[in-house]
């Protein structure tokens, strides 16, 4: 079964942990859709969020191997959807003449922000679930996308508890 999986990995900030984690996936032919690494609230700890798709059994193997890596503190599999998933995108879109108003209407509907303006373009910041980002991109694409930078999805568990429980 080819499913999309979102996995969070809490790791110690050691040199090279990122490439070790990434190569665990690539060595098994698992393509990474997106990958995010950034510090957490705990000193010396980073969180890696990986969105990937592929066979469930192979993913289980990868998760087991991740757990064996010495720098890995915890692996959280959000594939069951028990989380809030969000992504941010910065979008530079052509906006001349009549298109300017249309871009601003789309911005308004998606509650996006304009973060840079030129006489020929707008640069937008938009957040939401990855499918919402896809939605605004679909509307803006015919107007002329000049540049797109996405963060890839990050996920946080629902409820009051943190990852430590």
């Amino acid at each position, binding site marked *: 079964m080819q499913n999309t999986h979102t996995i*969070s990995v809490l790791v110690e*900030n050691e*040199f*090279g942990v*990122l*490439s*070790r984690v*990434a*190569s665990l996936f*690539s060595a098994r*032919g698992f*393509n*990474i*859709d*997106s*990958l*995010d*690494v*950034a*510090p*957490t*609230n705990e000193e010396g700890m980073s*969180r890696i*969020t990986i969105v990937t798709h592929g066979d469930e059994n192979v993913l289980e193997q990868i998760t087991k191997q991740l757990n064996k890596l010495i720098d890995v503190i915890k692996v959280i599999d959000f594939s069951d959807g028990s989380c*809030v998933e*969000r*992504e*941010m995108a*910065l979008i*530079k879109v*052509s906006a001349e003449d009549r298109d300017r108003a249309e871009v601003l209407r789309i911005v308004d509907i998606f509650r996006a922000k304009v*973060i*840079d303006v*030129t*006489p*020929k*373009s707008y*640069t937008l*910041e938009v*957040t939401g679930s990855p499918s919402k980002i896809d939605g605004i*991109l679909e509307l803006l*694409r015919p107007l002329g*996308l*000049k*540049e*797109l*930078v*996405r*963060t*890839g999805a*990050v*996920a*946080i*568990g*629902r*409820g*009051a*508890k*943190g*990852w430590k429980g």
Partner: protein
Amino acid sequence: MRHTISVLVENEFGVVSRVASLFSSRGFNIDSFIGAPTNEEGLSRITIVTRGDESILEQITKQLNKLIDIIKVIDFSDGSGIEREMALIKVAAEDESRAEVLRIADIFHAKIIDVTPRSYTIEATGNPAKIDAILELLRPLGLRELVRTGAITIGRGAKGWAG
């Protein structure tokens, strides 16, 4: 010195770990690292925030340019880009502190994306310093969990990276 670098790469297996290991093998610590698809089919964009010696970074940039999967390297260290980050923040919120959390969220134009009787989960965006500022205010109230995306950067002006 802090450096922000964007790398446009072809979606090949293993390119992420190759780029990451170029940094780690030289003892360059990566503050944050993002790889995600772009508008062009088959093309991904990696944004790296790192700290370290300028001349070593120049070496790394040269080596990045030699990797076969790499289409373009953009160095935003001169501040010519717009930098943004998103954070999902789960903060304890009981009794009186509930109103205070909402006030802080309001001031930072943050959104509440999950609620329980004892906590709020907040989505905040802005430059990394703004994220640091809201975290500093929320920390005394009790941070339960924090997920940051790391910074992404886009050039100013009307032109895209392809020029």
